């Protein structure tokens, strides 16, 4: 049915309903009369229609009802034509009809929505239930829900199947009867406990068959009061799990057993290097005892593990497999272990590295054994027995780490021993004999091995050696000969306890066998030697005579043979070397003859070609900057050298004989010029000139290579060893000549420089002398000026007096007092004055006359003489002269020069007194002798010489006076006169008042 038709049928049904209501109205009206309300049946009709058929049919019913009622009931068969009441009724009906329709429509929509909703919810609920049931049934665990009476409320399929029942069959049955086949619940049942305390409980329960094991959990279901009314009983079959677990445990135990008893040091570590497994061997090798290692960090157990091992562990963790055959492990207590180790990573099931396994083999013993074998191997090859015992002693000391080793042979019926080798503290000691009584060695004899690991000193208190050594441990073994008799012993003594006696003993036993063999052989040889000695003696004499004769004969033959071979050699050499000797000889002559280098080179080149028959000979010098070799002289086929390029640098043009000989500073031979790769640049040119071989020798100047001489020959293999020797000799000769020439040049240069220097010096001396002359002249001038001044002083007074005498003659003439007596007196006095003046001049003249020879004179005289020349001047300056003669001194020397010195000192004193305006000036002269030497001191009170110049006052040209007054020569000359001319001494010092000059002659 299409929707349109369904719609139309609904409208038709509405019409029908209205018709039915109308008919019902009519029927009721017929029964009850016309008082019936107009619309009584239509109200329910419209209501019903709207409810059942919907909005459209409802409205149609309302309209149709109103129309029908108006036409047939209000005013029959008339439409409209209403009174107010009727209109109101109609309107009310219509309104009510519409409202009812709308309400019904609304109601219908709500109902429809509710229905849809309910339907949806119901569907979901159903699906959830189905899902839950599916899930419940598909869970492999056995699930049952049970009430407080252990009755089954529900089971899942797995449970039902397990019980071989349908689910429904289980309901209501008690669980223990169904599950365990018992009358009462099992004691372990978690359900009972869950019900009582409302908490979940888990228990392992065995099923009907003993092999089955279940893990049962009971979870209580609580009602609203919080009381448990049932439990969910979940049983998981863990039989397989249990079995696996058991297997694993067994495997683990087996692994533990396997690792633990492995005959190797094995340890397994996790990523943090904590022990997981460890073998017993590991414990014993590294001295770990029984302590619990599992879970302990390796580095806590061995803090001494070196960094490179830690690094190896890290690399192992990174997946590497590492292996070292021999490695040294120094333990914290200082002992050394040798180990061979291997590190492998292990992986967890997911393939990640879970840690490492270390395999470590303690090979110290093996190392020692190897060492022992090696040692014995070496010794087998050794010839000297003495050496063997020494080596053995040294080896034992090192191998067993002991301080003292001695190897003895037994003597005197095994009561004493003589050492064959004593090794103590790293040194061998002299061999001695000692008594075996009261020594551990005495105990050793007759036993295979004797060991005192500790306190050996206490055990043998009478053994001084042990006491001296501070011995603690002792190990000894007997050396047996092949007949089984003791012939010697080995004793090893240490200052520390012997911990591992086993290895030590075995080493000692092994070496003992070897040592015994050696000792026996030696003893045997000794016996044999003694027997042989006698035999040999008689034999020797005969032998000796034969040998003498044989030697004499052999000598003769030898001499003859040598002579012959030498002669042959000499002859061939002579022939071959003749030419080169000629060259050498000529060259040496040239060297003697020639004094400059270029001519020497020229001559050499010429001689080599002329006398030596060389094709070409040339001398080249190397330019130090560029390395180019420049031709200085050449002779022979010089065309070869035209535009040739040769250097001493390391390049192709420097690889020829010339370049090489210059570079190396020796010589270079090229015996096959045409095919030698070194001479490649010159092959073509050489062929043109027929050069087949060449040789070059470096030339040196004072050990520095300056160039080379190069010779070219027209034959291949021209230069043999002797040629080379000669060439080298020639190079040396020429170098020597160059050296000589240079030396000569240098000597000449030095001589010239010396000459120039000498001339300069002479000039300097000359100029100095001239200066000195000038100075002396100046001094003389000054002295003369001084003297003239002095003469003036000396003469002034007498001249005045003389003048007065002369004037008085005229003045008194004619007066009574002018008589003969007056005249005589005047003349006499005048003459006296004139004599005095004349003497003064003589004094001065004498004073400056030079003396040729020394003479003896009195110091007093000299002083007086000098004073006489200056006293007038001193008087004028008010200077008091204080002359003190303590002793009369005789001086041998030049009196005038001496007086000059005095004069000089006096004048200096005067000058300084005047200059400094000294109060009551005074000059003090003292004459005396000291130790047979005349001493004259001249002192003033002028204040002295400043200390800073007192050292310099005797220097030439030193003056404190201005340039007009002093020349600075006076004191210098004075010192020269006293010290140089008269061998005396002139010195100065400052007194409290002034300077004091002291003349000692």
């Amino acid at each position, binding site marked *: 049915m299409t929707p349109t038709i369904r719609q139309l049928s609904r409208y038709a049904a509405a019409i029908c309903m209205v018709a039915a209501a109308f008919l019902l109205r009519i029927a009721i009206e017929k029964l009850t009369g016309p008082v019936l309300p107009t619309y009584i049946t239509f109200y329910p009709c419209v209501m019903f229609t709207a409810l059942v058929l919907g909005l459209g049919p409802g409205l149609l019913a309302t309209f149709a009802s109103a129309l029908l009622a108006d036409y047939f009931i209000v005013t029959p068969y008339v439409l409209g034509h209403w009174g107010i009441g009727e209109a109101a009724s109609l309107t009310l009906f219509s309104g009510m009809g519409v409202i009812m329709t709308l309400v019904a429509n609304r109601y219908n929509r709500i109902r429809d929505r509710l229905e849809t909703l309910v339907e949806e919810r119901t569907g979901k609920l159903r699906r959830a239930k189905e899902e839950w049931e599916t899930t419940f049934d598909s869970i492999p665990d056995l699930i049952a829900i049970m009430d407080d009476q252990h009755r089954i409320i529900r089971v899942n399929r797995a449970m039902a199947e397990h019980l071989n029942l349908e689910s429904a069959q289980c309901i209501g049955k008690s669980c223990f009867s169904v599950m365990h086949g018992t009358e009462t619940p099992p004691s372990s049942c978690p359900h009972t406990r869950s019900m009582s305390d409302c908490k979940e409980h888990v228990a392992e329960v065995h099923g009907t068959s003993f092999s089955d094991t279940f893990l049962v959990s009971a979870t209580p279901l609580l009602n609203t009061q919080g009381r448990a009314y049932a439990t969910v009983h979940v049983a998981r079959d863990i039989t397989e799990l249990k079995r696996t677990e058991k297997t694993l445990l067994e495997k683990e135990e087996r692994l533990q057993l396997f690792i633990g008893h492995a005959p190797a040091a094995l340890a397994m570590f996790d990523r943090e290097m904590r022990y997981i497994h460890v073998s017993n061997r590991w414990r014993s090798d590294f001295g770990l005892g029984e302590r619990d290692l599992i879970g302990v960090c390796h580095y806590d157990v061995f803090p001494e593990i070196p960094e490179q091992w830690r690094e190896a562990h890290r690399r192992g963790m990174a997946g590497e497999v590492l292996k070292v055959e021999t490695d040294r492990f120094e333990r914290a207590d200082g002992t050394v272990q040798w180990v061979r180790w291997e590190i492998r990573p292990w992986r967890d099931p997911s393939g990640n590295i879970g840690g490492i396994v270390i395999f470590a083999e303690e090979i110290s013993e093996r190392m020692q054994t190897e060492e022992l074998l090696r040692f014995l191997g070496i010794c087998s090859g050794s010839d000297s027995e003495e050496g063997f015992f020494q080596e053995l002693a040294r080896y034992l000391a090192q191998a067993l780490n002991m301080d003292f080793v001695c190897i003895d042979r037994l003597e005197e019926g095994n009561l004493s021993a003589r050492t064959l080798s004593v090794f103590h503290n790293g040194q061998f000691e002299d061999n001695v004999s000692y008594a075996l009584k009261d020594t551990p060695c005495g105990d050793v004899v007759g036993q295979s091995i004797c060991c005192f690991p500790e306190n050996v000193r206490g055990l043998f208190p009478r053994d001084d050696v042990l006491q001296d050594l501070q011995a603690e441990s002792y190990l000894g073994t007997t050396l047996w000969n092949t007949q089984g008799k003791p012939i010697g012993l080995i004793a090893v003594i240490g200052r520390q306890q012997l911990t591992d006696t086993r290895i030590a003993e075995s080493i000692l036993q092994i070496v003992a066998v070897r040592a015994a063999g050696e000792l026996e052989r030696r003893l045997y040889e000794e016996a044999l030697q003694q027997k042989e000695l006698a035999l040999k003696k008689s034999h020797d004499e005969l032998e000796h005579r034969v040998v003498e004769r044989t030697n004499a004969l052999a000598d003769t033959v030898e001499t003859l043979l040598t002579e012959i071979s030498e002669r042959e050699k000499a002859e061939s050499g002579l022939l071959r070397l003749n030419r080169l000797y000629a060259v050498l000889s000529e060259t040496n002559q040239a060297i003697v003859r020639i004094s400059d280098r270029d001519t020497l080179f020229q001559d050499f080149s010429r001689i080599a070609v002329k006398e030596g028959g060389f094709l070409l000979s040339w001398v080249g010098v190397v330019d130090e900057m560029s390395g180019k070799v420049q031709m200085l002289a050449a002779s022979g086929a010089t065309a070869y050298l035209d535009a040739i390029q040769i250097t001493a640098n390391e390049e192709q043009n420097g690889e020829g004989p010339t370049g090489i000989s210059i570079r190396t500073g020796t010589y270079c031979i090229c015996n096959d010029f045409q095919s030698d790769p070194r001479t490649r640049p010159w092959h073509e040119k050489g062929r043109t000139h027929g050069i087949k071989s060449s040789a070059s020798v470096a030339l040196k100047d004072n050990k520095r290579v300056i160039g080379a001489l190069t010779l070219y020959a027209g034959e291949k293999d021209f230069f043999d060893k002797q040629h080379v020797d000669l060439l080298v000799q020639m190079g040396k000769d020429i170098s020597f000549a160059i050296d000589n020439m240079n030396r000569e040049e240098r000597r000449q240069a030095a001589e010239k420089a010396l000459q120039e220097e000498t001339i300069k010096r002479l000039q300097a001396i000359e100029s100095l002398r001239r200066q000195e002359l000038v100075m002396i002249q100046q001094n003389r001038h000054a002295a003369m000026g001084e003297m003239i001044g002095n003469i*003036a*002083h000396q003469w*002034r*007074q007498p*001249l*005045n*007096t*003389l*003048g*007065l*005498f002369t*004037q*008085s003659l005229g*003045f*008194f003439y004619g*007066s009574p*007092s002018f008589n003969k007596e007056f005249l005589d007196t005047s003349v006499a*006095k005048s003459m006296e*004055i004139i004599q005095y003046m004349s003497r003064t001049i003589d004094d001065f003249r004498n004073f400056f006359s030079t003396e040729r020879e020394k003479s003896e004179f009195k110091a007093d005289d000299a002083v007086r003489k000098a004073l006489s020349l200056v006293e007038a001047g001193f*008087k*004028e300056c*008010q200077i008091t002269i204080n002359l003190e003669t303590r002793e009369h001194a005789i001086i041998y020397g030049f009196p005038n020069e001496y007086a000059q010195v005095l004069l000089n000192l006096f004048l200096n004193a005067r000058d300084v007194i005047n200059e400094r305006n000294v109060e009551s000036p005074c000059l003090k002269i003292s004459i005396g002798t000291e130790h047979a030497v005349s001493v004259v001191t001249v002192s003033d009170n002028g204040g002295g010489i400043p200390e800073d110049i007192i050292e310099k006052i005797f220097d030439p040209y030193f003056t404190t006076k201005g340039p007009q007054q002093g020349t600075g020569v006076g004191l210098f000359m004075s010192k020269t006169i006293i010290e140089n001319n008269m061998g005396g001494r002139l010195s100065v010092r400052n007194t409290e008042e002034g300077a004091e000059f002291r003349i000692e002659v």
Partner: protein
Amino acid sequence: MNQKQPLSILLIEDEEDACEIIGSMLTMAYPNANIYTATNGKTGLGIFITHKPLIVITDINMPEMNGDQLLQEISKINPDTRFIVITAHSDRQNLDKISSTGIAAELIPKPVDFMALVTSINRSIAA
């Protein structure tokens, strides 16, 4: 000047001969005058204090007491005293000393010209 007092001259000269000759010549030249002679400054000063002579003739370079000191001492005692100083050319220093004292003095160079000395004495008397 007190005319009634006789003229008195003090001569101080350390050279005895010269002193004697000049003394005798002065006695000859001034017969009414009192002539005193001394051969050193100290004696000369003693004589001056005793006799207060009008004119003092003195050598300048003398032992015991030098000319300039003497001049100063005497002019303290009697500033009116006339001085005649006998000097050598080389006595420059001493001359400077005298001139620095501000004392007026006639100078007679050595060797002494007696007539020049007399002229100086006369000038001093007149002054």
